[in-house]
């Protein structure tokens, strides 16, 4: 049984159907990348997995447990599956170290001392230990996003959802964030990421999924999707990306 299993996921906003029956399995330690045009449903799919959005039909299961539908302890699910957003979403009224420690302290019952020490260790790994006492406003976008990743990691999640985490960054800051994701992949973190960084997707992914208008059109290993896509529309999408100089 796969670690994350999506079957028949459908989601509409009022009468606009955004996800039209998505099936996807993600094994433990796998990195799965969602690609597709803007508006194809990547963010919505990720938000449905950790129940930031409720789904209309289908099931989501994580670690063998069905986590969609009524009666599920969503807060517990979300501790297992962390999420990092395009716009960082750090808590602006807290220092960097408190942003990271607040979850472990309040939710995992760790003592503050220990949680702060661990926060600083994690920050050191992303070369930000010297910013522990800063407020988010005082950091660059790349630094904020690194903190946001660390904040998710600090909860010791079993999987991470990354939604276009470099899209809001200036080009020269993208690499510092992607390096961290690369390290996480190497350490065996299970990840689902939506991205427009095709070169990166090709490098870290085990599986690449092409979404179009809420449908999973094609999926396969990166060499196949980027090298010899079966679907004409996948090819068209990749052509556009190449023309935009992103591949």
């Amino acid at each position: 049984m796969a670690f994350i299993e999506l079957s028949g996921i459908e989601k509409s906003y009022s009468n606009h159907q955004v996800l039209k029956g998505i099936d996807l399995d993600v094994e433990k330690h796998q990195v799965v990348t969602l690609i597709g045009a803007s508006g194809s449903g990547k963010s919505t799919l990720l938000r449905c997995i950790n129940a930031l959005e409720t789904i209309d039909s289908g099931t989501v299961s994580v670690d063998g447990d069905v986590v969609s539908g009524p009666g599920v302890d969503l807060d517990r699910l979300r501790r297992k599956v962390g999420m990092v957003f395009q716009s960082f979403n750090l808590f602006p009224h807290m220092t960097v170290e408190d942003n990271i420690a607040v979850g472990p302290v309040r939710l995992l019952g760790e003592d503050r001392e220990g949680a702060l020490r661990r926060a600083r260790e994690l920050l050191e790994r992303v070369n930000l230990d010297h910013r522990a006492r800063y407020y988010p406003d005082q950091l660059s976008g790349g630094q904020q996003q690194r903190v946001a990743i660390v904040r998710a990691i600090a909860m010791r999640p079993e999987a991470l959802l990354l939604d276009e985490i470099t899209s809001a960054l200036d080009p020269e800051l993208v690499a510092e964030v992607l390096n961290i994701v690369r390290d996480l992949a190497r350490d065996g973190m299970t990840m689902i990421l939506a991205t427009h960084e095709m070169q990166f997707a090709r490098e870290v992914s085990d599986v690449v999924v092409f979404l179009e208008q809420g449908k999973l059109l094609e999926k396969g290993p990166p060499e196949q999707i980027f090298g010899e896509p079966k679907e004409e529309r996948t090819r068209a999408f990749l052509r556009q990306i190449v023309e935009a100089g992103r591949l």
Partner: protein
Amino acid sequence: MTSLSPAPRSRGLAVFATLLAIALLVTVAAVGESVRAGITTSPELSTFSIWVMAAGLALGAVTLWAAVSALRHSFRSASEEAAGEVLASRASAAQSRQHSFITFGLAFAVLIGFALIQLVLINDGNIQRTFLRGDLMAGSALDIARAFIVNIRLALISGVIVLVFGLVLAIARMIPGKAGAPVRFLAVAYIDLMRAVPAIIVLYLIGFGLPLTNLPVLSGLNAEWFAILALSLTYSAYVAEVYRSGIASIHPSQWAASRSLGFSYLQTLRFFILPQAMRLVIPPMLSTFIALQKDTSLVNVIGTLDAFNQAKFYASSTFNLSSVTVVAILFVIITIPQTRFVDWMLERGANRRKGA
């Protein structure tokens, strides 16, 4: 160097400023003298009016001096331009224009200030004698200040109750889900109702109504507690809306971030949304609190002896409103430090998060 653009124009402005300053001096002298001539009953007031006139003329002279330097710089600018020193000419013209604008600002302020004082003195000091009689103010000040402690006590106690109850209402209004619907409905109904009914009516109903109800505890309270109850009930509704607007203005992405870490709805409110919202609501909260302070003066309708009620005793026994002016002044005195304090607090908060 022919490509340098010429200095901005300054002459017209400087001439206008000069004429304005002269007109100001003439006006101050003419109005001041005619008002002074009308003061016949009080030699002190007459002396005061002469001092005011002197001060007005002195400030008028400063204004004229600024206008004259505007003219001087304007002439210098012209001669520098003639000598081909365009950059110097520009600087002089800029100086000239700045002095012209200073003249306008000064003239405006002096005129308004002078006019207000003349208004008090005009007609043989009628306004002064009605509202600002020093002897009556001094005579009533101590008693009124003592009664003002009641206003302060009402404001503080109600203020604390309102901060807590307002927050409860705001959260009740935002409780999610189907199960929360009745609570939401009650909160909305309460807020709508209490914002619609004038505070003075609530006060009147409670102050005169509750004692008639024979309810245990409630009907036995004294007038001051009725006042606190009425003000708290009314202002909680306003404060609930202030909280709600603060909470609503926190970006939804903060909710997403917190929920994605595994925080529950209430934990998210408590740890992330409210702390940020609090900072946003401080200014409107202060306005509401100042309104509450002022409305403590309504309690005279149920017979509580507050500063206004005390002042009315003096006013009716002397047939003069100077004692009521004392109350107004007391309210101003306690309000201004609060607004400055909040400004300072907001600035400090902003500095801490930005520059460190």
